């Protein structure tokens, strides 16, 4: 069947060409940009070479360091709850309780919307005076909460919105993976006297691990890179409490026009993504062995 050796490469060519020219090559270009002083104003002129100055600058910038802390909290929270709730709901959905078809379709909806739409909808939910949540709290005789105008609360509110936004993907992904597990394994375990918890740790988890790994990587990367939700929901405030590194990159690069700083932060994000994925993969491989 495989007479022509070049056939697979021909089939791969369009995808690889696009990925190389529009994804990999720009990363190196960004590296160059981060070593020069490029602003929106001189983008088409000669770029003055500055070496590692931009790199030194960002790691001395307390706002950037603060944004890394915000990112850490935001990503850990998003990943934990998206995966956990995703698994819980997926596990219930495959039990086929009532109306699962309807729930399945409904639950996908948030993930299909744009971050801009999600950001606006939640901003309107959280509105101090006219928002639905405070309206309901007050109707129940409780104190209203300054969801996005209180610097101590805003990051949690952002997290709740992002859990709403991202969990559907984990549900889809995990449900699809759970369905591939042979049900007879559970019955066999039951006959052998295993309780549900034992079945979970000895059957579900090991078989799910590779998929869980991909799910973890995707969810982490999306959370690290996400910025438009914050941009619309809180604008990064109040007091920069919801400015993640990705949003800081966007603001530096596109709002302030400091393209070099933006590029340097972008590379930091890429390094974070690679490190996180590497750690997951190692942890998973450790589990298999």
């Amino acid at each position, binding site marked *: 069947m495989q007479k022509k050796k070049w056939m697979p490469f021909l089939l791969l060519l369009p995808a690889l060409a696009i990925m190389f020219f529009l994804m990999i090559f720009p990363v190196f270009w*960004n590296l160059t940009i981060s070593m020069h002083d490029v602003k929106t104003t001189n983008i088409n002129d000669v770029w003055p070479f500055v070496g590692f100055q931009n790199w030194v600058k960002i790691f001395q910038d307390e706002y950037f360091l603060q944004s890394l802390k915000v990112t850490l909290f935001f990503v850990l929270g998003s990943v934990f709850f998206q995966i956990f709730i995703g698994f819980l*709901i997926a596990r219930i959905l495959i039990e086929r*309780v009532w109306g699962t078809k309807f729930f399945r379709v409904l639950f996908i*909806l948030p993930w299909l919307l744009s971050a801009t739409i999600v950001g*606006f909808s939640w901003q309107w939910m959280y509105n101090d005076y006219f928002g639905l949540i405070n309206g309901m709290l007050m109707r129940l005789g409780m104190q209203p909460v300054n969801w996005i105008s209180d610097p101590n609360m805003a990051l949690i509110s952002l997290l709740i919105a992002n859990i*709403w936004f991202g969990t559907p993907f984990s549900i889809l992904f995990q449900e*699809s993976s759970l369905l591939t597990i042979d049900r007879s394994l559970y019955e066999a375990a039951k006959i052998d006297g295993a309780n549900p918890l034992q079945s979970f740790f000895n059957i579900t988890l090991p078989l799910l691990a590779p998929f869980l790994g*991909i799910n973890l990587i995707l969810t982490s990367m999306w959370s690290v890179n996400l910025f438009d939700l914050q941009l619309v929901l809180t604008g990064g405030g109040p007091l920069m409490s919801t400015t993640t590194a990705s949003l800081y990159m966007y603001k530096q690069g596109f709002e302030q026009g400091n393209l070099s700083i933006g590029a340097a932060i972008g590379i930091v994000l890429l390094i974070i993504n690679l490190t996180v994925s590497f750690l997951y993969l190692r942890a998973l491989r450790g589990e298999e062995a």
Partner: protein
Amino acid sequence: MTKKNKIIRAILFIILVIFAIYTIMPIFWVFVTSLKTAEEARSFPPTLIPKEVTFQNYQLLLQDEQMMRSFLNSIIVAVPATLLCVIISALAAFAFSRYKFRGKKQLLAGVMGIFMIPITMNTIPLYLIFQRMGLLDTYAGVILAYQVLIIPLNIFILKNHFDTIPVSLEEAAALDGATTMQRFTKVIMPLSWPGLSISFIFTFRFAWNEFVLPMILISSPSKTVFQVAMYRFLGLYSIDWGLLSAAIVIGMIPILIIIIFFQRQLLQGIQAGSIKG
């Protein structure tokens, strides 16, 4: 069914209902607000059901040429970008699924690695590349740029699906003299609808929702896509919640259409296990 089982089922059902309320609330709230007058949208305490249902927000939006034009632009860009992306990914997935070649495993891992590049960061180099290619401010440029959004995930989804199709079917076709392309278009593709549907839906989701790429790559207002126009609209009418909500609802329409018309394919795709990488 035993009594204990019934109680467990009831608890599970309640969890689903709670999650459903969480899921639907923000969407419901925006929809309700879009039907309110500007005064009622800013009334205190907020009303859950509009006292007076009005379509004036939608009428105003339908008269807003910029918004309507941008909606059309989004369709002009997102539909071809989706088709192109699924075809390109399917060809690559076919190669990964059906051929043995050196470095295949590493290449596949590399494809996944590409997914880690933050696209926002690549926007500036893309701007410079497209400037040199004369693709700035063109639909073609945006369609090309959108290809980067989801190719890696598509390749994984489709490869996984192709792997479940028995090779024997193609061998039979090959014996009958089918070429590689015929095997791909006549055997693999028709058998892959669940995987392809998932792939189409995901790709369209990314193409319809993308915000930064079109914002940077498109400069003329007549070519602006909906997400960008909406973002500017939000800044422009930041206090008219009724009008903004109506804009949001209009932005959801294509996604709602997809959900309603493709729900069967989506469910089949989930059941076929197509989504796991």
